[in-house]
């Protein structure tokens, strides 16, 4: 598969895979291949129903309210988590004693599966958006923290020595060397961090809330409305792709100096 393929051919193949998948789904759920279609549809719905439902959902203004809530939670979780991660990453990387003392606690906190915190956060912050922001924060914080910590620690010694020989003060080094280097590392984890902010939001909503996409899916699931669950998942997927595209645009804007989008992590 080393042969370079033209873009159109590739796109055609990609669409073909999707269509074949949908066709199999359709045939297995509409025709009595595995059993009575009614029974099968209870568990798997049908692609046509899911698309129809997605369409009606999307044309209902209610869904935009849910999307707006989830978006708010995601953005807030990302911003607070990233700011916290940057601040502590810098602090710990520049202060070896602090890093050494807190090391076991950081490792322990990071090892904890954060989902178990969701009920506690619901208790502390209520069922509104803040318990979801808190859950997203704990996920985003550690990713950004570790990346910034690494970024500050692993500044190229040659670049650093060169900057020193140019006469830069500690403040100059921070501004011209450490900070940009840490940002690079942070941006290389941007997709992961934003993804986790969204996971925090949706999982939080799923476990207890009255609004948001996670709530929508949970609501459909609790009445065995499989079509509704799939429609919710489809909307969520489109939502994630849109957010990811926006992140890519921001990344390309901020990392113009980097060689040809090399760092795919």
């Amino acid at each position, binding site marked *: 598969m080393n042969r370079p393929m033209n873009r159109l051919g590739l796109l055609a193949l990609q669409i073909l895979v999707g269509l074949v998948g949908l066709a199999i789904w359709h045939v297995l759920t509409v025709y009595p291949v595995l059993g009575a279609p009614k029974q099968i549809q209870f568990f798997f719905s049908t692609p046509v129903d899911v698309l129809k439902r997605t369409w009606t959902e999307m044309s209902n203004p209610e869904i935009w309210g849910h999307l707006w809530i989830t978006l708010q939670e995601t953005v807030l979780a990302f911003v607070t988590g990233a700011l916290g991660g940057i601040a502590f990453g810098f602090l710990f990387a520049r202060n070896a004693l602090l890093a050494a003392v807190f090391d076991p606690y950081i490792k322990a906190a990071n090892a904890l599966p954060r989902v178990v915190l969701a009920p506690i956060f619901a208790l502390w912050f209520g069922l509104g958006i803040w318990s979801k922001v808190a859950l997203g924060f704990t996920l985003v914080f550690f990713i950004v923290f570790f990346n910034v910590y690494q970024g500050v620690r692993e500044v190229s010694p*040659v*670049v650093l*020595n*060169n900057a020193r020989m140019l006469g830069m*003060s500690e403040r*100059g080094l921070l501004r011209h*060397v450490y900070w940009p280097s840490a940002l690079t590392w942070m941006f290389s984890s941007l997709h992961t961090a934003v993804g986790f902010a969204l996971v925090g939001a949706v999982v939080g909503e799923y476990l207890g809330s009255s609004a948001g996409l996670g709530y929508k899916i949970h609501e459909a699931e609790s009445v065995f409305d499989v079509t509704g669950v799939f429609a919710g998942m489809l909307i969520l997927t489109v939502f994630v792709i849109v957010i990811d595209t926006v992140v890519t645009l921001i990344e390309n804007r901020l990392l113009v*100096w980097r060689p040809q989008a090399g760092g795919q992590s």
Partner: protein
Amino acid sequence: MVGQRAAEGRKGGRTGMRLVGGTALAHDDAVRLDGVSIAFTLKGGKRYVAVENIDLGVMPGEFVAVVGPTGSGKSTLLNAAAGLLKPASGTVTVFSSALSGLNARAGYLFQADALMPWKTALDNVAVALEPQRVPRPDALARAREWLGRVGLKAFVDRYPHMLSGGQRKRVALAQMLIRDPEILLMDEPFGPLDAQTRQIMGNLLLDLWAANRKAVMFVTHDLEEAIALSDRVVVLSAGPAARIVGEFKVDLPRPRDISEIRLEPQFHALYKEIWSCLRVEVSRAYADAPA
């Protein structure tokens, strides 16, 4: 002073001469190492002496090349002169005062890429003036001028990764020279470049240096490059505990063209003479190298 050294150390060579050991009249050197030894503690607590008892001075306006086999501690010596490394014993003197901390009167050109990859060529050069509190518009104007001087007028807005290896070295050269340091320390700066680019860069360096003569300490493993560029070639022995084993005056006329000077008979005689000294050390370095 050079004359005195010549008289002292003449060994009958036609064009070069050989001086072993220290040099007299230390007080007017731009940078000077006296009895400098540098040691590192290796993993496992073993002590590794890189260079031992080095006496080396560079006068203002003098271009000194330091050659030696790989692992002879050439860069270590340079780092001591820059203040990046503290000698285990001996002193580093910069214009008659003992060096403590970084050598603020020196510029350093590194072998590896040392530009800030997140800044354009222009910003990389302009930022070198920030510690001197030059207002930003002035700094940018002067950076533009310097980039023009190294032949990169059309590339000011490029990021380092968009430049070739030679172009990056030009930016680094401008970055070092814009501060107008009195001492230039260069660590195999053209090592990673291809042969043609090296010659072009060498000529560029000589032109810039001729316009404003500084004390230069230039480390290289390439003897031809050392002779073509310098006023004096210092030969280091193979490490560990490298010492100076020879000093040769290069009295080829200036201005020089690096690619043409290699064809001169005088150049060949010098090369032969210095190589006979260096060859011993190079073969020792290979013999001692583990596996």
